[in-house]
């Protein structure tokens, strides 16, 4: 394509490195990236090495239904459009800020965007499908918690809130939006077009809060995990709200 | 640069003409003073008037024709009005096929809204951004055609050889170079001259350049006194004074109130109320403010808040954000403050109704710069219909004209001397053109404004003469490269011609009709059912009047006969 007046220095810009499988972004000395990888590594080690046993019927969401699905859920989040924005900005600094004086981005830094290894992000929809398959287990866990105690407890409520947030996060996903109507140009030409369009509008509303939901549900996940660990260590922080 | 047809102005009319000429196979160059797609057409908000009868089934071209003639107060050219009324629907459908979208009815047809002076709901629209949609669609079409586009070029002179158009000289603003465009025909579609007034809704380009170029080339200007004051312009804050508040606000149910909370249009126009023709509403607002029933900013209230926030944000998103951002007024809760603002020039270059050709061979004109269609007052929505219908006619006929013709050469010393003239403005110690522009627009605003009186206009003509003399000392520093100051000098020269034509025509017309209201001649008079024409008579502006051509019987039947109060 002809890009008119864009003057560039191809060698320096470094995005035309056709032989590199590993994008330039990952080769750069980037303490933020190292720190991020280390933190993720430690977290994974802790989760795998120190599992939370089901206590009083409450199952830690990291282990629902099994810790083996964690990579799938992790990949779903890693390829999520909301997190992509965050780590491209705050880890790779491409760019750090929109304000043009504080971007920490430049022509000298290599940039491949989502064209090389990061092209895998385009498989986001498959991780979504997988995650949707796992979702029923979360609801099952709420049921188990209620059935085990025969009461609505604080812990059960926390689990329920977590599950609702995860559900909202999943179904506000951009890939899901593509399915609900993003790929449709003419609703009125389709069967039940008006209802489909209304569904798309509702989903679009959720989607506009996808970023907030992504972070809310992630923080909730961690909170629930810490809460249940505290509970299983013997702290008395659970109480019954209503007997069933 | 060589091409069969040169088009100056890349607004709706110019681009529609380019598409028509390109489709026929002509070699076309479009030049524009600003970037492509930025023309004043983007400001059109209401819609395109076309009697497609999607909403009101009773509508037809005959009613559209009669509305245009009656609201143009009987001095419009019936041939143009007939063409417009008959062809507008097809032009709208064609625009849709080019890719434009319109709001739809429940049946999926094009949605039409009510507008001042139109008997039926007739304006095809998309929200309040119809002009933008129109220009974007035509822009895409032109960019994908073979037409060559030269943007940011200011044309300084048209060259006429042996009574025929030969070429035009322009400055390429980005490089500062002069470019000579050799062409067999030219279509002038440079838009209006609203910038000659202080308070105007018009954008930077609308300085009447096309009018002055045509006048200097020997074309005749018609009905120059007919300036449309849009009833509703913003008044506060000062920086946006004059900015348009679309008529759609009234079309969608907005009402006008004075400071006594009286819906005063019930007094001035009990039947059509807020949706009477623009001249009537503008005058009514003017009288209310004069009578002391206006706000502190010299305005009346326009209220749409009773329609509810959802409705307003969906139907008038542009107005909502315009008031929110510029004035800090939430129009879903509070009324807007509005006052009349200069909006449109009904008059312009005299053209043949069927070919849009001027009296100079090879010079065509279409759009706001041309005259005839709107008579003494333009109907809302007719301007967008005008540029589509007559843009196409201009393109088609310019092609017919150039077919088989040869290029006419222009002597290089003539071009050189024009370049020298332009470069002459670049000098140290010259008079700042913007001071003159400021003075000129103030004179026009104060003396040849919405309410005119003989003595004022005589004073204005004197002031304009005086400004002409001072304009000889104009000069700016810098080079020819992107020098707005230099353009300012050239624009002032053009504006002076336009202002002289407006003021002198207005002084001649001793009656009140449409956009022209005189306090010393408050009534409409049968002997003035004429067009005032001005032309360049060896360097002196001369005027003649000509009777308006009579309607043939089959059309006269459609139109409510004209009534004069005195008879």
């Amino acid at each position, binding site marked *: *394509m*002809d890009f008119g007046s864009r003057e560039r220095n191809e060698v320096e810009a470094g995005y035309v490195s056709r032989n590199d499988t590993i994008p330039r972004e990952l080769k750069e000395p980037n303490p933020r990236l190292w720190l991020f990888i280390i933190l993720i590594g430690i977290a994974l080690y802790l989760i795998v090495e120190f599992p939370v046993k089901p206590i009083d019927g409450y199952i830690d969401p990291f282990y629902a239904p099994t810790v083996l699905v964690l990579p799938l859920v992790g990949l779903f989040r890693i390829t999520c459009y909301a997190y992509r924005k965050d780590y491209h900005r705050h880890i790779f600094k491409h*760019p750090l800020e929109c304000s043009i004086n504080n971007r920490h981005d430049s022509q000298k830094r290599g940039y491949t*965007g989502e064209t090389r290894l990061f092209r895998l992000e385009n498989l986001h929809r498959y991780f979504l499908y997988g995650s949707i398959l796992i979702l029923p287990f979360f609801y099952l866990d709420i049921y188990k918690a209620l059935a085990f105690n025969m009461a609505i407890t604080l812990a059960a409520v926390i689990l329920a809130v977590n599950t609702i947030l995860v559900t909202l996060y999943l179904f506000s996903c*951009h890939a899901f939006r593509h399915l609900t109507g993003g790929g449709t140009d003419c609703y009125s030409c389709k069967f039940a077009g008006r209802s489909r369009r209304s569904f798309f509008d509702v989903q679009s509303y959720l989607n*506009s809060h996808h970023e907030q939901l992504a972070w809310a549900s992630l923080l909730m996940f961690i909170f629930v995990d810490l809460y249940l660990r505290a509970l299983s260590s013997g702290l008395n922080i659970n109480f019954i709200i209503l007997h069933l | 640069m060589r091409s069969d047809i040169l088009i100056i102005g890349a607004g709706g009319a110019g681009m529609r003409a380019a598409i028509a000429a390109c489709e026929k196979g002509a070699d076309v160059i479009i030049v524009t003073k600003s970037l492509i797609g930025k023309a004043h057409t983007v400001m059109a908000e209401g819609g395109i008037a076309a009697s497609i009868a999607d909403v009101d089934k009773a509508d037809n071209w005959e009613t559209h024709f009669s509305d245009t003639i009656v609201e143009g107060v009987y001095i419009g050219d019936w041939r143009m009005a007939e063409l417009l009324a008959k062809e507008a629907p097809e032009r709208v459908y064609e625009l849709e*096929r080019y890719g434009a979208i319109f709001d739809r009815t429940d049946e999926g047809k094009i949605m039409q809204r009510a507008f001042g002076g139109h008997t039926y709901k007739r304006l095809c629209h998309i929200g309040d951004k119809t002009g933008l949609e129109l220009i*974007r669609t035509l822009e895409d079409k032109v*960019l994908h055609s073979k037409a060559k586009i030269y943007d940011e070029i200011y044309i300084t002179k048209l060259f006429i050889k042996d009574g025929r158009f030969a070429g035009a000289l322009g400055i390429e603003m980005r490089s500062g170079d002069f470019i000579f465009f050799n062409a067999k025909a030219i279509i002038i579609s440079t838009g209006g001259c609203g910038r000659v007034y202080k308070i105007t809704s018009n954008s930077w380009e609308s300085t009447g350049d096309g009018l002055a170029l045509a006048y200097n080339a020997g074309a005749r200007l018609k009905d120059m006194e007919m300036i449309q004051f849009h009833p509703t312009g913003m008044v506060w804050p000062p920086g946006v004074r004059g900015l348009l508040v679309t008529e759609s606000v009234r079309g969608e149910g907005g009402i006008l109130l004075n400071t006594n909370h009286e819906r005063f249009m019930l007094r001035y126009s009990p039947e059509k109320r807020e949706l009477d023709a623009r001249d009537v509403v503008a005058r009514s607002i003017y009288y209310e403010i004069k009578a002391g029933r206006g706000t502190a900013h010299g305005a009346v209230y326009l209220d749409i808040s009773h329609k509810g926030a959802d409705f307003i944000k969906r139907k008038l998103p542009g107005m909502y954000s315009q008031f929110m951002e510029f004035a800090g007024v939430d129009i879903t809760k509070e009324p807007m403050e509005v006052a009349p603002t200069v909006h449109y020039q009904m008059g312009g270059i005299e053209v043949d109704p069927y070919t849009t050709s001027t009296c100079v061979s090879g010079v065509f004109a279409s759009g706001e710069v041309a005259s005839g269609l709107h008579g003494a007052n333009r109907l809302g929505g007719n301007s967008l219909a005008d540029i589509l219908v007559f843009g196409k006619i201009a393109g088609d006929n310019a092609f017919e004209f150039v077919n088989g013709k040869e290029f006419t050469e222009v002597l290089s010393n003539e071009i050189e001397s024009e370049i020298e003239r332009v470069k002459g403005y670049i000098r140290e110690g010259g008079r700042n053109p913007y001071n003159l522009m400021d003075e000129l627009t103030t004179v026009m605003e104060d003396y040849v404004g919405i309410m005119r009186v003989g003595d004022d206009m005589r004073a204005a003509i004197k002031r304009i003469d005086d400004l002409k003399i001072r304009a000889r000392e104009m000069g700016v520093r810098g080079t020819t490269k992107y020098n707005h100051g230099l353009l300012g000098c050239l624009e002032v020269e053009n504006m002076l011609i336009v202002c002289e034509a407006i003021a002198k025509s207005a002084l001649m017309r001793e009656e009140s009709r449409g956009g022209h209201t005189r306090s010393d001649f408050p009534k409409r008079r049968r002997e003035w059912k004429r067009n005032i024409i001005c032309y360049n008579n060896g360097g002196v502006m001369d005027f003649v009047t000509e009777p308006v051509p009579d309607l043939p019987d089959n059309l006269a039947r459609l139109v409510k006969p004209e009534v004069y109060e005195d008879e």
Partner: protein
Amino acid sequence: MSDLNSVSNRRITISIYRSESRSYVDYTVPLEDGMVVLDAVRYVQEFIDTTLAIRWNCKAARCGSCAAEINNMPKLMCKTRIDTLPDKIRVAPMGAFTNVSDLVTDVSENYMINRQIPEFKPDERAERPWRIAQIDVDRTKEFRKCIECFLCQDVCHVIREHKADYVGPRHVVKVASLDMHPLDTLDRSEFLNREGGLGFCNITKCCQEVCPEGIHITDNAIIQEKERAVDGDYDPLLWISRKIRHNR
């Protein structure tokens, strides 16, 4: 009428980039109520230094000519009220484009890119005049608000810092507006992905942040086009199903 005619003594200083000296020059201009940056810049151009090159047309945020960088943020000068800015105001030309003079930049590459986007191609079999439902108009309507100010192109780091072969947010919006037309028959996502460099976009959403028309560029145009490109270029199951259908 007092507040309209009162001669105020309030003044502000605005520093404007001048290409001749390659530096910022301070100008002092009188301050009016509700004044926007363009008012101040025009005052400088008309009454202080007529050689200052600026580009403006409508002064109503409808034409998109007066794009500039005000205090390091890409904005429309006509839409930025001075009372929303700190005391120090700095106006620079858009940095992603070649500078022509002072605040004026060469944005012509955008028109060249537009030329290469496949045109609207309606379904010729559709009965005329067309019937289109309002629900099918609403989505593309958002993209048609674009005033081509090119602030999104300016802020996009792919273009600004990396000069990559990416068409840029404005043109993805253009493609989306054509693709989502209910009667359009083309799918331009493949064009966008292969020739338009859509993959270079890493959805950092600055374009959406600066859009003066409030178009959800990233969410509604870019990501939707990316998902369509996944359908065509990346999704393995869809690829296999296309192969099978093709072989039949």
